[in-house]
């Protein structure tokens, strides 16, 4: 069982994440925490100084964080994107597809169940942030 998962090779950021408002007020902050109601597009002008974005999932059924993640990746953000909070093993596949590359779940996750979940689907119907080609692209070379 694990409570911290990371799919990156670089060193983790070590400073605590601050709120979006605080981050935008402090020119030297490098880690920011996005809550479900935050407009993540406010980060886009200052993306070059962001090292870590934590996206909070207070309840796993609240899916706003999936859009926040995709918007950041679409804007070109390459740094660490961490899902934190009520993150369950059955949600991590889609989170990976939306661009999350690290996870800090409230409750530990069974690595075997997760490994199966991440390997189970070899094909996808949509392009997303994980670089997988959708089946339309595979069908037509």
């Amino acid at each position, binding site marked *: 069982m694990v409570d911290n998962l990371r799919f990156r090779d670089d060193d983790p950021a070590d400073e605590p994440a601050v709120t979006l408002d605080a981050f935008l007020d402090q020119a030297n902050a490098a880690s920011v925490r996005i809550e479900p109601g935050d407009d993540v597009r406010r980060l886009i002008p200052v993306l070059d100084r962001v090292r870590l974005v934590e996206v909070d999932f207070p309840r796993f059924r609240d*899916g*706003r964080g999936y859009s926040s993640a995709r918007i950041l990746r679409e804007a070109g953000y390459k740094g660490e994107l961490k899902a934190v909070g009520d993150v369950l093993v059955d949600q991590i596949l889609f989170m990976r597809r939306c661009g999350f590359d690290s996870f800090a779940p409230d409750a530990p996750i069974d690595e075997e169940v997760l490994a199966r979940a991440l390997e189970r689907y*070899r094909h996808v119907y949509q392009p997303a942030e994980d670089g997988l080609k959708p089946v339309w*692209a595979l069908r037509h070379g």
Partner: protein
Amino acid sequence: MYRYDKYDQAIVDARVDEFRDQARRRLAGELTEDQFKPLRLKNGLYLQLHAYMLRVAIPYGTFNGRQMRKLAHIARTYDRGYGHFTTRQNIQYNWIKLEEAADILAELATVEMHAIQTSGESIRNISSDQYAGAAAEELADPRPWAELIRQATTFHPEFSYLPRKFKIALTASPTDRAAIRLHDIGLRLVRNEAGEDGFEVYVGGGMGRTPFVAPLIRPFLPADQLFSYVEAVLRVWNRYGRRDNIHKARIKILVHDLGAEEFTRQVEAEWQEILPLAEDFPHAELARIATFFPAPPYETGLSDEIDLSDPDFALWVGQNVHAHKAPGYAIANISLKPLHGIPGDVSAEQMDLIADLAERLSFDEIRATHAQNLVLPHVRKADLYQLWRALDEAGLATANLDLVSDIIACPGLDYCSLANARSIPVAQKIAERFADLDRQRGLGELKIKISGCINACGHHHAGHIGILGVDRKGEENYQLLLGGSGAEDASLARIIGPGFSEDGVVDAVEKAIDTYTSLRSEGERFLDTYRRVGVEPFKAAIYG
């Protein structure tokens, strides 16, 4: 019809494996019911009053004999020998065991079927025109588009934890048989003056406790930009739709709260963000899918004459058979509303028979309709008599399509854990009251729709006559609504006054209908008369 390739099959097989694992973890106590609930719902598995209910997707309502036989097999093996066709062209089984659910999904996967996203806060099965590919007035067969949308919305990683469910309906016809303006997104395929295909986009329709007819937010969306635009709609809603109150979470509330104009502005702004990155589908993919929907190999030189010397057959032809675009062919509707029956229910034996008839007489195609009936879309007129005889022997030839006894009803308190009142007995009593088919024909098109709670699965808001079951101090009570339509003249029915008992509402329906017959002008349907004269004469007759 569409056939899976290795990719589609691999995805559906993976879903069976995933659900088997999730069910195992639930049964082992590794998942709480709170954690498991959204997972099983995304696979159509509800916990109802007596047992689990499994809803199986019939994408855009099109299926074949082999699939229908599998549905019959499932009814016999895992349920009590019958299934129930729903108002979204799906089928559901009412007596399922959790331990067997994954086995059922595995059986479905062998015939290219699934239960993916048939419930839960996800993008649901897309619905469409049951006469697709057969109706003369359609611009094109909408099903290649529907299949594209099915694929694009299956396991969408961003839109799988939405504020609430999300339903898309599509038509390519000026006649709306898919109730597109009562869906979260309604799409109508249209062609502009330059001869290019596009979509009218309606967003924010729906029924439930707060019904709305969807406004048109884009009169012409170039067809090849459909997905990026739909994605923009979904993203605006996913980010800004309400999540604090389940009853305010549907996209219709956001559209209403912002106003259609401001909502449209936000969608267009989001679309401009997405567009530079958008990988809309390749045209080759639409062309590939379209090859699965060729016109059937119709015989030519067939006569359009039908021998109507058998009077019962003639009545069935007059009511349940619709014009087909190919000479010598017809569209045959199979009513699932026999007297004393349960609307939408079919036995396993009837399913097997319909499968045989579809294979022999309708190029192996069956359609499910949102009115809970079935269709054999391509029948030679010369074969209609033998079709009718076979259906009649099996109790499937009730000649009541669109008549007063062709009632839409939700499962209601007989099955559903959300219901406040029973729906099925009310439908049966109304059908009995008007059992005389001559009388029904004399009343013309009359759509009665019954829901057992305000969630409106029985589409009462869209009924010419709608009935809503509520709980009043522990007693089942029924409100009467008049004036709704789910068709191209979409409108919402309005409650006309205090509610009734079960028998009282049947009397009230009869009084409303008597009022119509006393006031109607030549050629007017119930709905037309109601719209012309207004509610007062009806109220006076009913509450006098």
